[in-house]
């Protein structure tokens, strides 16, 4: 439902956002993520939103515990960011887009 597939350029950033229903936190996280990606990874990312309410079996694979969780599948290594992604600086650090100051 919230899938966004950006096919305009090579997708070297594969991100997966785990949510559980359309809670305010999830919606906020998705909005925050979209904003950050558009700003820093324009055209090179792909976001897949997984709703665990619909497919709970997927939680185990990525070791999901907290909701929302953002998983950076590519590039390796896998990184995880939990929370509503409201702290942009932390998200950038977490995604390895900015060296830790």
């Amino acid at each position, binding site marked *: 439902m919230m899938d966004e597939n950006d096919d305009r350029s090579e997708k070297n950033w594969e991100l997966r956002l785990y949510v559980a229903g359309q809670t305010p936190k999830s919606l906020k*996280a998705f909005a925050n993520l979209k904003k950050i990606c558009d700003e820093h990874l324009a055209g090179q990312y792909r976001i897949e939103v997984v709703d665990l309410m619909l497919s*709970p079996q997927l*939680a185990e694979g990525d070791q*999901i515990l907290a909701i929302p969780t953002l998983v950076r599948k590519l590039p390796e290594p896998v990184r995880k960011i*939990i929370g509503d*992604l409201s*702290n942009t600086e932390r998200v950038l650090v977490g995604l390895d887009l900015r060296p830790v100051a």
Partner: protein
Amino acid sequence: MATEGPDDFGTRQLPKCPTGIKGLDQITSGGFPSGRPTLVCGGAGCGKTLLGIEFLVRGATEYDEPGVLLSFEETDTEVKQNVRSLGFDLERLIADKKLRLDHVRVERSEIEETGEYDLEGLFVRLGYAIDTIGAKRVVLDTIETLFSALTDHTVLRAELRRLFRWLKSKGVTAIITGERGHGEGLTRNGIEEYVSDCVILLDHRVVNQLSTRRLRVVKYRGSTHGTNEYPFIITSRGISVLPVTSLVLEHSASRERVSTGIGRLDVMLGGRGIFRGSTAVVSGTAGTGKSSLAAHFVDAACRRGEKCLYFAFEESPSQIVRNMESIGVRLDEHVKTGMLRFQAARPTLHGLELHLAVAHEAIEDFHPSIVVLDPVTNLMAAGGLSDVYSMLLRLIDYLKGCGITTLMTTLTSAGAVLEATETNISSLIDTWILLRDTESSGERNRGLFIVKSRGMPHSNQVREYRITDHGLEILDVYVGGGGALTGSARLAQEARDRAEEMLRNQEFQQKHAEMEAERAAIAAQITSLQAKLKVTDHTIRVADSEEELRQAKVAADRDAMAKSRYADQATPQNTRLKEGSQ
């Protein structure tokens, strides 16, 4: 969320979920609170995880309650490997959809926290796992790991509270394990605050270089429970909690009797031996024949077709077999037929707990109806006095519960008060046979007596016995002026008795002869008198007939004379008249 149902009120007992763990259900009077979380906390290596897994395995195999293990520490493979040695085949249970393992890996270095979050993911995972197999049991091991993985403890605490409420609403019986804290709290992060229905504390202590695991029910809301610390052991079949004292004394007492294998000893014990399922102790100083007595007991039982388990703490099986052969008891034959099994181990080989565990296992494996412990005093080497006492108490309780007749031997040290058996186990035992050496007139002799025997009349005599090449023999009692006679004193008494008997016999013979003679004399007299009597009778008869003849002659003469005078015929009237007129 409905946490407290109306069932919690009134006299109705809280619904329980049997753990299936040996002894634990007994302590908790039925198991953990059904549909509620239970906290199991303890230090590292105390068996928390194992308890949790056994809870799941027993649930799946014995109570048809599938379970979910959410492991925060070990991976699925590790968990499977760890419990394989206990005979738990998790793979099969998983394949049968009776069990589900889910390893929750949380690595702080991999996780960045930005802003608000909750643990809905955990709920989803757990909920999914529960729903796929219809789980009734859940184990969270160890959820406190989350405290080191997540920085926002406020959120975490709130979520844990929510989790436990959610588990209750799911109606699953859960075990939450927690690491023992160093401070005041039971757990490092105080999660006992959220799990308030039942708290079990595990502990692993090393005393005198021997480790003992203990379990205590710290709290159990709405239920009675044993409050003591109960030792428990991890055997090759899982956890076994051994209540030191059973909460209830309810072994059914058999009226059946079991022979001791020595006829005369049975006679001393009310004529028929000891009760089945009772515990007998044979105590005595070194070399009084305790093991020999035990061997007789075993021999008799095997002949009756009852299986015996012989715990030897002092001698090796072959040594026992050889030694008993010398008194004519062939134990090797019973070993061959499989009626007798030896379990030999030095007491110092392992701690008391493990001894107990080994004993439990051997008993469960072999199902004997007779158990011999020879000698229990040797266990002192493996533990302190009170520990041995408590171990024996538990063992006896267990054996009684199984209806097994037990014979223990205890060694009394020379010089000590004989009646004070080392471990003061007297109160535990039903029949106490004391063997002792008596020293008199330069020799030692063996005496046997029954100190006590519950529920039957028993002999109060000290009986001398000998160990012969055909077994243990209880001899006759000789009571002299100064007490029972033993050894040569008894032999002397026997000789004296024989001499006296002979003398008495001779005297009697003589008297008998005299009387016979007298009787003969009297008989002779009688014979002569009878002869005399015969003669007299004859004389009387002769005189009588002569008189008759004479009278007849007189009458004839008178008639003749009257005829000659022409007198009338003499008639009675005439005669009378004539005579009257004269």
